[in-house]
């Protein structure tokens, strides 16, 4: 047996080690050390993503959508080396919404038309022509559109003010190109490996995965709920731990991955992502006392009384409350001695 394997045996965790508390302390203690997310410039990605304590809070709270969703899209085959092909794929992903193209719009309520002046610059940078935009609008919203230079005219066929207004709202929200919810997609190059990939400022990986030419097996986003929907809970668990690690790494705080995995596992062990707060793990504990001692004391006591709940005194908090030993660590074992052995011990 190799030396390291022998050693590894001595390195295993001890029975009844309170690993949950260790994990909580390992993340909680350095919380105060997290620095103001001052001017770090590790890369374009980290530049826009929320980081530091706010990001940790967001992750452990199981917030439905991250404040700054980001997706990383790797490319298949030659595209990962060829910037032009990559650009083409990025174009397919890049979400272009109508409101970003509009420079000015005028609703004519007497005629029942809307005139939209498109921004030349924006059109150019997105590689679209006014004609394409108009066609897309007609197809998407089933509108009667016509184009003249940079102006799209939409005939609404009604003079109802409300309808015209609503149509305008729909138009400005329409996705002209790319994938809805994918955000702005930009081609990036890994400075170390030279690999070309795409980063988009959205987390609709369910949409992005339908684009051909991308490496589906490496598709990633910082939105753990999106990962749960597309790849399942195990993937979400991994992503959660990975996101926590990335956030701590960026703050140069070293925390063993085991702690982060445990937090992720505790949050996902039921098959859905639960936050750690009163609406998640802590709020769903079996013990009435544990819930009451945490938050919303009165509410939990009242509910327990109404339904006739029983507290089986198995957890940590409950036992502390009544002054018993906690059932974890050294409190989980008992020392016993046989009666006949007891008799053997006699003073000289």
């Amino acid at each position, binding site marked *: 047996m190799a*030396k*390291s394997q022998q*050693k*590894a045996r001595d*390195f*295993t*965790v001890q*029975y*009844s080690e309170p*690993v*949950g*508390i*260790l*994990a909580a302390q*390992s*993340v*909680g*203690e350095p*919380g*105060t050390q*997290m620095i*103001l997310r001052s*001017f770090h*410039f590790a890369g374009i990605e980290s530049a*826009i993503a929320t980081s530091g*304590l706010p990001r940790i*809070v967001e992750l*452990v709270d199981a917030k439905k959508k991250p404040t700054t969703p980001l997706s990383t899209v790797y490319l298949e085959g030659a595209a990962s080396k060829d910037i032009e092909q990559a650009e083409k794929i990025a174009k397919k992903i890049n979400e272009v919404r109508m409101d970003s193209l509009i420079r000015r719009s005028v609703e004519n309520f007497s005629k029942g038309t809307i005139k939209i002046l498109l921004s030349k610059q924006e059109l150019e940078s997105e590689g679209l022509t006014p004609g394409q935009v108009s066609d897309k609008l007609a197809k998407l919203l089933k509108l009667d559109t016509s184009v003249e230079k940079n102006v799209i005219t939409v005939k609404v066929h009604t003079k109802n003010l409300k309808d015209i207004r609503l149509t305008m709202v729909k138009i400005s929200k329409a996705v002209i190109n790319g994938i809805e919810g994918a955000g*702005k997609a*930009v081609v990036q190059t890994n400075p170390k490996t030279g690999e070309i990939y795409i980063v988009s*400022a959205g987390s609709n990986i369910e949409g992005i995965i339908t684009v051909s030419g991308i490496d589906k097996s490496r598709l990633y986003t910082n939105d753990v709920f999106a990962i749960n929907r597309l790849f399942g809970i195990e993937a979400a668990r991994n992503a959660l731990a990975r996101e926590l690690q990335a956030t701590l790494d960026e703050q140069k705080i070293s*925390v*063993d991955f*085991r*702690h982060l995995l445990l*937090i992720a*596992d*505790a949050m996902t062990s039921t098959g859905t992502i639960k936050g750690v707060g009163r609406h998640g*793990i*802590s709020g769903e*504990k*079996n013990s*009435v006392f544990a819930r009451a*001692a945490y938050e919303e*004391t*009165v509410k939990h006591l009242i*509910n327990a*009384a*109404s339904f*006739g*709940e*029983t*507290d089986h*005194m198995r*957890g940590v*908090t409950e036992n502390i409350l*009544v002054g018993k030993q906690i059932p974890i*660590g050294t409190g989980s074992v008992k020392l016993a001695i046989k009666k006949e052995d007891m008799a053997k011990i006699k*003073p*000289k």
Partner: protein
Amino acid sequence: MQAEVIDNVKFGIVSPEVVKKLSVVKLNVPDTYNEDGYPIDGGLLDQRLGVIDPGLICKTCGARAKTCPGHFGHIELVRPVIHSEFSKIVYMLLQSTCSACHRILLGNEDVQSLREKSKGIVALEAEELSSEEIAEHKAGETDQKKHAGRSLLKKVRSIKKCPHCSAIQNKIKFSSPTYFYIGDRKLKPDEIRDALAGISNDDLRILGIDPDVSRPEWLVLDALLVPPVNVRPSITLESGERSEDDLTHKLVDIMRINQRLAQNINAGAPQIIIDDLWELLQYHVTAYFNNETSGIPPARHRSGRALKTIAQRLKGKEGRFRYNLSGKRVNYSARTVISVDPYLDIDEVGVPFEIASKLTVPFYVTAWNLEKARELLARTEYPTILNLTSTDGKRKRIIDANREELLKELKAGDILERQLVNGDMVLFNRQPSLHRVSIMAHRVRVLPGKTFRINFCVTPPYNADFDGDEMNLHVPQTLEAQAEAKYLLEVKYQVFSPRDGEAIITNNEDGITGMYFLTQDDTRLTKEEATYILGIAGIYELPAPTKDGTYKGKDIFSLLLPKGLSLDIKTSLGPLRIVDGKLIEGVITKDTYGKGNNKLLLKIGMDYGEDALKDFLFTSSKLSDAYVTFSGITVGVKEYMTDNAIEKARQELLEATFKQVDDKIQQYKARKLESLIGYTKRASLERMIIVDLNIAREKAGEVLIKHVSSKNSAMQMARAGSRGSIFQYEQMSMFLGQQATLSGGRIKRGYYTKRVLPHINPGDVRPSARGFVRTNYYTGLSPIDIFMHAVGSRGSEVYKALLTARSGYLYRRLSNALQDLYVESDLSVRDTGNNLIQTIYGGDGISSINTQFMKLAAKADK
């Protein structure tokens, strides 16, 4: 040590019968004391409710204030009221049952299927399982049933016609806190009680309610239980005036209204007046339970302070649960200021004599140690016995007068309380106790003086310094606790942090500087010097001298290393090579001697054990301190003086950076700037400027390294990693750099024209207009820079306060959610409800404290 064990706690509602059984007296006088200052019979401080004044005797149990547990009384309400805290449950039940036949608003089929689901327990009992196994199933199942029932409650509300008696259901409206309406007609509490009483036990079980302990009609109160006086003690002020507890005040209110209501009913007053009084009674009862109920004005004291009623006593950080039940207070503890003593071992604590003579350790007298016990008890001076608890449980204080007598009576089974002596294991703690190494076990060393003293190496886990910090000391009182302290909490087992397995108990600051100086290539000591510092460290041998009779610093350092230790690593100052316990190449810095991923300490800890590691830390810290005292190090203003070369480099760097930024601004104005992902054009420019300024700061460090002499003390400390960094040097001698705001951006607000100061043009985004400080502490800041720096300082102060609050709450939530997880004997992680969280801890079962060991071992294997 547990006399009686609470196995489980069942929650329920107090029924009227229970109220009558519990109550020792029916209260009917809405007052407390009579003119003579004597408690009124039938009043709220009736002596049958228990006594709190010393000397008085309880009329119920005959005990005195200290032993009387207190007894409940009750008030009979002339008209029933609803328990406001439960009105949501009442509402749910009213909605989900028929108003005519009171059956649950579900067809027989639905009911049947639900019944099947909740039948489990009976079926199990038939299968001849042991009672324990059934209990196990029940525990899990009540939970399931509870959820099934609760979700059903929601579903049933939309049903309009009763499937049993076909009665049409009128919509019931609920208005917080206690009003129920059918249409416009208000439901009286007695009507509600009738409706709730009509629900059958079977139907309640379907809804997840256990009717044995919780019949809903009990929520409509006829009799109000009055807590004993012990719960609401009155206090006598210095003036002799009595001041009653908030609860007593509220109960007086309830009784007054109750009495008035009774009088009005008897006098045959009009219905409107009776209803008004009834409502008022309801209000007082509501406020009595929870004075913060939404929808009612809080009852107030004469002074305007809101009364603290039952809910307020339980709730929140200062409530019964978090303050008294989760937070325990202890005896056998001490607290004082801490200070350093480098000659104490790292696992020792210096305890002032005054404290050591007050604190005690139990000495359990047995047949085997009777002699020793007598010897101790006979002593009249420290260390002696302070108290004796004999087998009959009586505790006596030992004084010279009774010593002789007690000596004669001393027998096995007695417990003596011995004063603290050298070598006792005690727990030492500094708040905030953020991680487990905030409490460690130390060996006592009784010393003169008034402060606790610790070795400098153990300050990092406590995060302590000596600018007035105080720490707490606890003496474990049972043999189990003493054993746990010794074998689990002792300092030598905590050198590596469970957070990442890296060293946390290490030498630091000047201790590292000393090693850095000692292990320089050209460090030579004469025989006198070498013996002097080695003597201080307690090493009484000399390494082999060099040809000219001097001793190399590296060789002296090597004396500290265990025999046979070999290490070959890279540090920030080049390679470090130790062969067979001798430092051959390299300099000791923070990388090998300080906090963090410290391979030298890891190696000693892994291969030679915690005792060798403890010895190394203690001996080396003494040696290091001795050498740094001997060689000396001074940091003065002199270190930060700049010469022309540095000044020129600084100017050039700033000019180049500003030009770069100006170029970007020009590009932006010409609309040629490429925007960054997720940013608008303007924000992209901002971002790019920040990046440029940041690069300038990095470059400033390089300039300093190039120009400043390597003998500069501040530089040396930065290089050794003992104190200070290049960044701080930059602030002294180059420039302060960009000042940040709370949101992490550059400073931009101030005047409404979007400029920071009036002499900046609106819209100016150049570095100097947005809080980039070009000057340094040595030459002094320019007036504008001072202003910008003040803005930045204030921002970071505010941010710090914000961050501690936020991270404190995050920590509380995390520890609350994860505290029940532990490792089972098969290395799986479970919670105390036996739910499986991980099949094997961390994927490999390796303890987090050993991860760095693991890496080192794996490396050695290759």
